[in-house]
């Protein structure tokens, strides 16, 4: 029988650091994919992925063995991403302009490509940051609303309202702005 994520993480907490590589193998694609979709920067997504798993070991004692490992890991992912952007904002205020400019350019590029789900990702990228995050954690990472509410520090009911709103907005963007059939 395959050991659960929580069992493995409990071993890491007890000092068997090497077992962290099993969790890395299980989740580094999820973490990278999430960070890439949020940031649209491959190098940054790779650096942050490394950073997340380093933090997983550094803060291993904060893991509650009775709760979901994936939800705990995505709390680290989210915090690492926020920390990075906070530092970046502090480093250079001018960057925010560049970020917006490149974000729009990337969204346009995604639309032009029309490959697979590019149009959907372009529409998701037009959502406000918080709604985009909720959508990605619930639909791509398949985390439960109760788990996402803990990750984002929101009440479960407030989170559900925001999640439903984000779906409605997404369809409006696709139908009205991007002229897709939905």
């Amino acid at each position, binding site marked *: 029988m395959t050991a659960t994520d929580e069992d493995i993480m409990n071993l890491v907490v007890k000092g068997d650091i090497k077992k962290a590589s099993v969790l890395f193998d299980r989740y580094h694609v*999820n973490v990278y994919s999430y960070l890439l979709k949020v940031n649209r920067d491959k190098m940054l997504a790779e650096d942050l*992925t490394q950073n997340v798993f380093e933090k997983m070991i550094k803060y291993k004692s904060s893991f509650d063995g009775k709760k979901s490992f994936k939800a705990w890991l995505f709390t680290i992912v989210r915090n690492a991403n926020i920390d990075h952007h906070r530092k970046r904002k502090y480093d250079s205020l001018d960057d925010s302009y560049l970020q917006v400019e490149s974000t729009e350019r990337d969204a346009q590029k995604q639309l032009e490509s029309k490959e697979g789900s590019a149009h959907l990702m372009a529409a998701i990228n037009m959502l406000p940051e918080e709604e985009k995050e909720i959508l990605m954690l619930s639909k791509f990472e398949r985390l439960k609303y109760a788990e996402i509410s803990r990750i984002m520090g929101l009440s479960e009911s407030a989170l559900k309202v925001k999640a439903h709103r984000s779906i409605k907005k997404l*369809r409006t963007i696709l139908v009205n702005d991007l002229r897709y059939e939905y």
Partner: protein
Amino acid sequence: MNIDQFEDKMILALEGDLSDKEYEQLMQEIEADENLKKIWRGYRELYSDLNSIPQDKPSPKVKERFDVWLEDQIPSTAKVVDFAPKDVKKGPVILWRKWAGAAAVFIGLFAFWNLYEHNRQVEDTLADVSLQMEELMDQQSSTARIKAIRVNYNPNTTSVDDKMIQVLIDVLNQDQSSNVRLAAVETLALYIEQERVREALISRLAEERDGGVKLSIITSLGQRQDETFKSTLEKIVNDDSQEKFVIDEAHMQLIRFNEVDI
């Protein structure tokens, strides 16, 4: 119910948050209205598309980098070569007052032989490590090359041979992987007292493109406040094309030279 309220109900249905009775009632209402049918189809399709968005895969170097980092976190598996010969014998000291003179000569000779033997064993060990390192440096994987450099990494030693230093300098100047170059800098920093090491690091600083490697070189050179390094630091501080964290570190090192006001 208006369209907006219907849409809320449809989302609740797709999230599985409606009771069987509520779901059935909604389906009847949708069935009776062409516009609602179209909206319902749209939401179902949207949910289906959201569930099938593919994951992006990172490059293999992400795993490689984590494995190297993880290995460094495990003290028991750290690959450190002890340069001190393990079986250097310590000669017995014979104290006999009547033969003190003869014993002194004997002890002197024995100590000399012991020192000679110790040096020979250290040289043999260094030659072995050099050979081992050179062989490993030919590996394709950057993880293997970093391991090769780590073979030479022992923070408690100052023993080194010229060949080994040259291999490390070559790696620093030629290796494509910034992680490998970073490992070379960390190991070379152990021999920072050697002028050729300092010269190689200063010269690399002008060529290096990776911010992390540059940072490590500046920090390493900062351990030994060498006047020749000061002008390099000044250039970095005044070079706008450098990364901000590199300029900050160069500035910090200049402060340590007591030249810049905080």
